[in-house]
């Protein structure tokens, strides 16, 4: 049952070559982060004039939907060397370990569940937030802007689970940057 997929084999670019140097790896990582930031700015800017929104609200569903598409596809690549999953919890465990380290270079730090379809995945140093603040600095500074950085990942999770056969609602909660909790609620029909 132990994971067979290693980090170096499945980095975010999906290339199976051995990492050349640390420099080229850094470039790989940056590329995703910068592109993500630009997409985020684009979506936020495009929807900022939406008159249906209340003060202080933003329409981030487009970002979430993009994440869904990426998540739906990436799961094919990341699970290709895996046997079938035993049950739902098994899938979530895969998400917390191999899946997360392939995408964000670290594993989920804490997984909680009520065994009735609600899972809480906690990342104590979420990659897209760690440049904003840490435990020694002012954690509140960018709190208001954080949802923009999280929507894509929420969609990513939802898309991946969807392709594994779980339809769900994914929400995120941030109280102190860079800690982020993802709440996955499985929808049973």
């Amino acid at each position: 049952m132990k994971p067979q997929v290693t980090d170096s084999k499945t980095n975010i670019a999906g290339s199976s070559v051995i990492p050349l140097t640390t420099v080229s790896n850094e470039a790989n990582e940056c590329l995703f982060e910068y592109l993500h930031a630009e997409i985020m700015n684009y979506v936020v800017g495009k929807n900022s004039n939406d008159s249906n929104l209340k003060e202080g609200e933003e329409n981030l569903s487009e970002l979430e939907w993009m994440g869904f598409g990426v998540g739906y596809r990436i799961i094919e690549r990341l699970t290709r060397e895996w046997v079938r999953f035993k049950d739902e919890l098994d899938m979530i465990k895969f998400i917390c370990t191999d899946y997360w380290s392939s995408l964000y270079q670290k594993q989920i730090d804490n997984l909680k569940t009520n065994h009735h379809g609600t899972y809480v995945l906690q990342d104590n140093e979420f990659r897209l937030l760690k440049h904003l603040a840490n435990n020694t600095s002012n954690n509140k500074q960018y709190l208001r802007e954080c949802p923009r950085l999280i929507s894509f990942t929420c969609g990513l999770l939802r898309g991946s689970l969807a392709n594994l056969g779980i339809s769900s609602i994914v929400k995120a909660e941030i109280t102190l940057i860079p800690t982020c909790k993802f709440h996955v609620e499985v929808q049973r029909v």
Partner: protein
Amino acid sequence: MTIHNLYIFSKNGVLLYYNEWNRLNKSGITKEEEAKLMYGMLFSIKSFVNKISPLDPKEGFLYYKTSKYSLHYLETPSGLKFVLNTDTISQNVRELLQQLYRQVYVEYVVKNPFCKLNEPIQSELFKTKVDELMKKSPIYLNRSL
């Protein structure tokens, strides 16, 4: 050994960040005016050095030294300017500036999507990290002068 103060200028001469650690003598003018004077002087020195150099200047201006302090200058290919004043016996200040650029500026300003480039840096994390880096460095010695 001691670190006095640090200026970071953008390509266009905007003061992005200023902090001081052991500075005894205040200039008596506002920070903005002081930054303009500093930038003007650096600009002049740079062009002076490049014009007067009898050989290919390569990196150009690196630092100057008075009897009391040294001013170290690092300019990146993108035009970002890091200026650090230390005492005259400090060594490897250039390395420290490189570190500041690579490990702090790139990580916490460039990679922070909410930090606008070419505007004064607001990020609290960046400020904390600069302070940490300086205080960790062997050049920094908190002497009560």
